[in-house]
């Protein structure tokens, strides 16, 4: 073999060796580590999951999609000046609130479930129970809006049972579960001295005593809600709420409220809406009521109309053509809901709304619950106690909205039409004050109107149905992905399932204020 030949042979050996090395070098056993996700973990701190879920839940029910731009129109707190569809009841179909339904299960309820699981594993009620209370608060809006919903089998796709098609539970069973969960939570929270959440809890800073009060207050809300359908249970659960360890709200300092940071990333969702939209006006129904009673809250709830400087409302359900006249003659919502400046207009639009709180449940509402329970002799209370609770509710609402002058409040309360009258008239007064106080929580105001028929709302001028909707149709995502179970729930609701079909607790025949 000559030299060239030898070089040639070595070269070939080198290339062959290289091929062999390449093959050996591609060690396939290392491939899975390439696929370790560097972007997101497969487990996360329960505290951080809780904070996110609270933000999401509050944004869903007290934000702009469900509350501000849909249900607050039905309940005639607001009216639409443009994009008038929802004000004509076109927003309660299967499409419009689909995202509200989906989002609450996916972004809040599932995450609360994870936190509750972590709390159970750590046998720490201060971690578990706030998540359970928040879940119950959230499920309450869902069932009161849609009726029967997936509950006992919900949120279980990742469990060992891997339920991918959850059944819809009858609402009565859901409510019974609420009662038992809230009672257990309140008892456990009142007893614990731990605080697992701390600053990760944007509502109560992790304080289990405050959470116990919220649990009992929510128990009272839920118990009274079913009073026309199952008075015995309502009575029993109200009693539990008022007597259980931990107690209920006793002042506005106990309010379950989310204080938005207002840092431009996490702003109050109404302020975010008003930063770019100018289509909401105050409803004539609400403003007329406030004006009629010379209510000092009118200056907080609303702005003076642009053209007149007066507080005035717009009728609900106008057309684009007929709404035009109200563009500048009807009041916009109050400056407390507006961000610092808005682009579509000069002053006076502008307020502190970016960091305005969202109210999950207030002391005022609790007092109105107590007043009604007392007037009806439920929950261990007597009719004689009703007046004091009624006035306490009004006072709390005034103070909550920044009206602190005692003389102003007392002047309002001493008007002949506001002075508490007992009996049926008193029940109607309580319901009307609750409707006023629940401003900014359109969902609760709507549920209460369905239960109490108060105030006596008139149909929107132009209306997609000949009635004010009493429920929202099952959302499209569930219809397409869980169709069989939706069909069962629909047939259980009645043969003529539509937006007028009452949910289980909605029995106006048994409601004294509806007669």
């Amino acid at each position: 073999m000559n030299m060239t030949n030898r070089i040639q042979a070595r070269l070939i050996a080198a290339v062959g060796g290289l091929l062999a090395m390449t093959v050996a070098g591609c060690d396939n056993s290392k491939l899975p580590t390439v696929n370790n996700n560097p972007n997101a973990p497969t487990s996360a701190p329960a505290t951080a999951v809780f904070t996110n879920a609270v933000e999401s839940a509050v944004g869903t029910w007290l934000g702009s999609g469900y509350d501000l731009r849909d249900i607050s129109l039905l309940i005639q707190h607001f009216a639409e000046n443009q994009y008038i569809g929802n004000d004509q009841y076109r927003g309660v179909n299967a499409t419009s609130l689909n995202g509200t339904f989906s989002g609450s299960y996916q972004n809040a309820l599932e995450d609360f479930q994870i936190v509750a699981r972590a709390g159970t594993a750590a046998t720490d009620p201060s971690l578990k129970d706030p998540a359970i209370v928040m879940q119950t608060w959230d499920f309450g809006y869902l069932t009161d809006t849609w009726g029967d919903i997936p509950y006992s089998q919900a949120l279980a796709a990742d469990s060992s049972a891997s339920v991918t098609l959850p059944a819809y539970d009858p609402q009565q069973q859901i409510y019974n579960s609420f009662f038992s969960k809230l009672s257990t939570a309140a008892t456990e929270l009142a007893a614990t001295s731990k605080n697992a959440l701390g600053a990760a809890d944007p509502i109560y800073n992790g304080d289990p005593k405050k959470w116990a009060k919220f649990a009992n207050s929510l128990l009272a809300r839920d118990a009274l809600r079913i009073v026309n359908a199952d008075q015995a249970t309502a009575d029993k659960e109200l009693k539990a709420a008022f007597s259980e360890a931990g107690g209920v709200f006793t002042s506005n300092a106990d309010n379950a409220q989310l204080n938005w940071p207002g840092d431009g990333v996490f702003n109050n969702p109404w302020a975010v809406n008003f930063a770019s939209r100018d289509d909401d006006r105050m409803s004539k129904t609400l403003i007329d009521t406030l004006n009629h009673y010379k209510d000092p809250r009118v200056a907080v709830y609303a702005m003076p109309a642009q053209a007149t400087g007066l507080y005035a409302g717009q009728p609900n359900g106008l057309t684009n053509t007929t709404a035009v006249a109200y563009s500048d003659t009807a009041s916009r919502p109050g400056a407390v809901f507006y961000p610092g400046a808005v682009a579509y207009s000069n002053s006076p639009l502008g307020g502190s709304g970016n960091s305005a709180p969202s109210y999950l449940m207030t002391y005022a509402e609790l007092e109105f619950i107590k007043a009604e329970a007392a007037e009806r002799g439920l929950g261990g209370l007597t009719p004689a106690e009703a007046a004091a609770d009624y006035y306490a509710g009004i006072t709390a609402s005034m103070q909550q909205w920044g009206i602190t002058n005692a003389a102003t409040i007392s002047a309002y309360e001493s008007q002949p039409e506001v002075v508490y009258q007992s009996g049926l008239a008193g029940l109607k007064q309580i319901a009307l004050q609750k409707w006023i106080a629940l401003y900014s929580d359109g969902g609760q105001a709507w549920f209460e109107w369905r239960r109490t028929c108060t105030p006596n709302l008139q149909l929107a001028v132009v209306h997609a149905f000949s009635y004010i909707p009493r429920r929202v149709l099952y959302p499209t995502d569930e219809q397409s992905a869980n169709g069989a179970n939706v069909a069962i729930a629909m047939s259980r609701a009645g043969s003529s399932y539509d937006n007028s079909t009452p949910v289980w607790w909605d029995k106006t025949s048994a409601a004294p204020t509806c007669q």
Partner: protein
Amino acid sequence: MQSHLWRQLARAGAAIALIPGVIVAQQATTVTGRVTTETGTPLQGASVTIPSLSVGTYTNQDGRYTFSVSAARSAGQTVALSARRIGYVPKTTTIALSGSTVSQDFSLVAAPTQLTGVVISALGVAKEKSQLGTAQQEVSGQQLNVTFAPNIESQLDGKVSGVNIVGNGTQGGTTSITIRGYTSITGNNQPLFVVDGVPVTNADYGSQQYGGGLVGNKDYGNAIQDLNSNDVASVTVLKGPNAAAIYGSRAANGAIIITTKRGSTGNTRMDVASSVSFDRASRLPDFQNQYGQGSAGQFKWVNGLGVLDGNDQSYGPKTDGRLLAQFDSPIVNGASQPTPFIAHPNNVSSFFNTGKTADATVSFTGGTEHSAARISLSGENVDGIIPNSYLRRLGGIAAGTLTAGTHLTLNGSLNYVRNDGLNRPGQGYGNGIMEAMFVWFGRQVDMNSLKANWTKSAALNNGPNNREYNWNYSYHNNPYWMMYANPETDTRDRIIANGSAEYQFTDWLKGQLRTGTDTYRYNIFNAYAEGNIELNNGSRTVDPAYNGAFANLGDTFTENNTDLMVTATHDFTSHFNVNASVGGNRRYSSFQDNEVDVHGITVAGIYNVSNAGLAPVNSGYTNNLAVNSVYGDATVTFNGWWTVEGTARNDWSSTLPAKNNSYFYPSLNTSVLLTDALPSLKGSVVSYLKLRGGTARVGNDAAPYQLFTTYVGNASKFAGQPLFSLSNTQLNPNLKPETTVSNEGGLELGLFDSRLTLDASIYDKYTTDEITSVALPPSTGYGSKLVNAGKIDNRGYEAGLTFNVVQSRPWEWSSTVNFSHNRGKVVSLNPGLEDIQVTGFQGAVYLQERVGKPFGALMGYGIKRDSKTGLPLLDDNGLWQPTDTLQYMGTVQPDWLAGWVNTFRFGRATLEATIDIRHGGKIFSGTNFYGTATGVLASTLKGREQDWDKPGWVINGLIESTGLKNTNNVTTEAYWQYLAYNNIAEPYVYNDTYLKLREVRLGYDLPPGWANKLHATNANIALIGRNLLTSTKVPNIDPEFTYQTGNNQGIEYATLPVPRSIGLSVHITP
């Protein structure tokens, strides 16, 4: 299985290492020369070989070739030297291998449709066309560059059958290309692009794909546009997975093989190609000019708080010159003084500029006996049709070949491209320039006022504080202020580098090591001035309490591919030839994305994160991926007329679970040249007839990180607290690869001395076990889960017919028709699942994949109708009602596509024209949906001929509640708006049929004397035009549109029309 394969391959490698070398000669013969047409035009890609010695090469773009034969092999003998190129009659001559340089030029006679010559096939291997068993089509650099298009994909428009190319109207915007339909529901459907043997990325920066953060609906195009078509020697489209099985998973949608121009030996030569063209918006909506801004006939401007001056519709008063306070009326003592309310018919068209596109490529080639190099520099400058927008591209390629001895050949190339974009126009909902500015618009608005005063503040017309001078302060910004005061810039630096070493061990065995890297860095920067009211995800881009905002996005991407391949060729007898390759590939890719959004800055004009007034919102992610592969390919040819080819590949992908990460896919194809097998067939009618058929299976992996469900973090803290949320997609630790199976058959026929040729294919391909996310009921806590499910079937046929109508000099006329039909169908989805939603528009229409329906089903709400009479069922007010459920409105896939390319030659003059036609399929037009609701379109004039509400409309229908004939008179405004309010899509779904005169070129070769003065062999000047005519029945929009290369197609809203351009080009050939 896996280790077994490796072991075998390792054994093969070791065996190769033991093969003895051959003697290296000391004196080689260099064979060099030039191949041209009869008229002297250089022929690129011609094969020049000494068949008896199995040596040879291809000519470069100047028609030059050089190769050497070792002295040991030549030994003074006389051999046959052949030059062949597809489309030309081959020539053979004899040369003596003297031991020194032998010069031999060839001049080939055109026979443009002969089935002879070579084409570049998979793995960059040159193959005899007569022996190909799969469908592929080649486009030469010359055919490609008839006119100047903004990207290489658009250059292919109409020139290839079986390919659907859709462009868009923004400079540098996306062009989508699909071959033989869609195979994947949610994954990629674009073909794989391969440049000089190495895959390159075609990353999608279209809108919708790129919806996150502040960078909204702007279309930054797809990455393959970085390639300069003037550097391309040829493009080969491999149409089915059959032809592409060897490239791996990503070629399941076909492959586009691009070969760039190479250097040639000899003196340095220069090539110059340049063109300039002028672009106009080709098709703007037909606007009405009789009614201005407002609603119900009312309008009056009072500093944003007048009568409906916040309204952005055109159902206002008649533009009859009545005196009204308007946004540009003079202000006296703080009050707006009424001015005549008149129409400005050109207020949209005058916003658009005449765009200008200029490009130039200058390249140099040259070399020595053993080396050749090419250096190319190119620049492209597009001034967009939108004011203050441009795209500039600067690129350079250096490529070289070095022959070291007679056995080793080294190749290397380095391609650098830099893109600079300014103000890519937004499209669609949100930031779309058409949407934001002209679909919701007042027809009386005087664009000149906006243009003249955009630098001034709103104080000039009593507008709100902190805003620019404008016509509407509720929903709009001044369009000029948007373009000038809110600059968005983007830059992409890209490097594609590859190098290879080829070693010829013996006559019949060679090895090749090749590595290539494709890397880019992309930065997008958006500045938003104070007062910008664009929305992103429902919240304001600029917090109104602050003095501006910005977004800064940075992406980096790198992919490396390394291949080692050994190829053996042997003629066992003169009747039996074998060609076999075996190789391995390692692919590694890495992608990083970082984005910073600042919604409020403290000091105006300083777009730096240190100036953030509000907490910056940060996000980012990394994707890494590795795939190891081994592959093999064997081709056996009998008697020169029957060829059988088999391929096999096994991949191991990092994205699949270890137990499922290995997948094997084979293919088999064959071709028979019947006219050679049965010579009696050949005659004056039939020149040749070839039949082919093949079957292939291709596996495909998942995207990275699809196995384990994760918690999604948020860089923003809630009052200082970290946030995590469980992802709404349930991932799947048991994923397996998806599989595409394809069967195809074809024939190639030449008639009348090959004056008429036909190349036709029929195919059926289906994809099973699609890796796709299917909806879960939201009540499970998840929105979807990832599964292997479903089957998509595509069937179709395609044909290319070329007819040399006139061949008598000086006249020539050749005509080619490319035709394709494909029908994709969703055969099944996950059990129990009826549909998968791809995208939707405003609750009115959705693009879905539905079991039993064609791929890309448009589902929308129709007009509720009486089942007996078909008349609309109206509400009590005599207005429209929607159907209760979504209706199937057709597929977005076309029925058929056709391209017609004509070339006329008379002496030195050439006229080329390409027409392309799309027939059928449906589109939904959001521009028409909202353009009627806002009353800006001319079609909304009917019903308000006398005044805004007279005579109005009485819809011919029945009142649903009473069953009686409707007698309600409604206004035109209600007539149209109740369609939109009720989400009724039906009237806005159109047949997407159109014909476009895509390219026209009138060129002239200057007389040789003139060219010689330029030291050139040829100089050509030409008038060029693109998109000159569009014929369609779709109203108001350009029916050709896309936002992205993904599957969100067929739903249009506020797109810019593809521009019409006319220009001049010059090409000087050395």
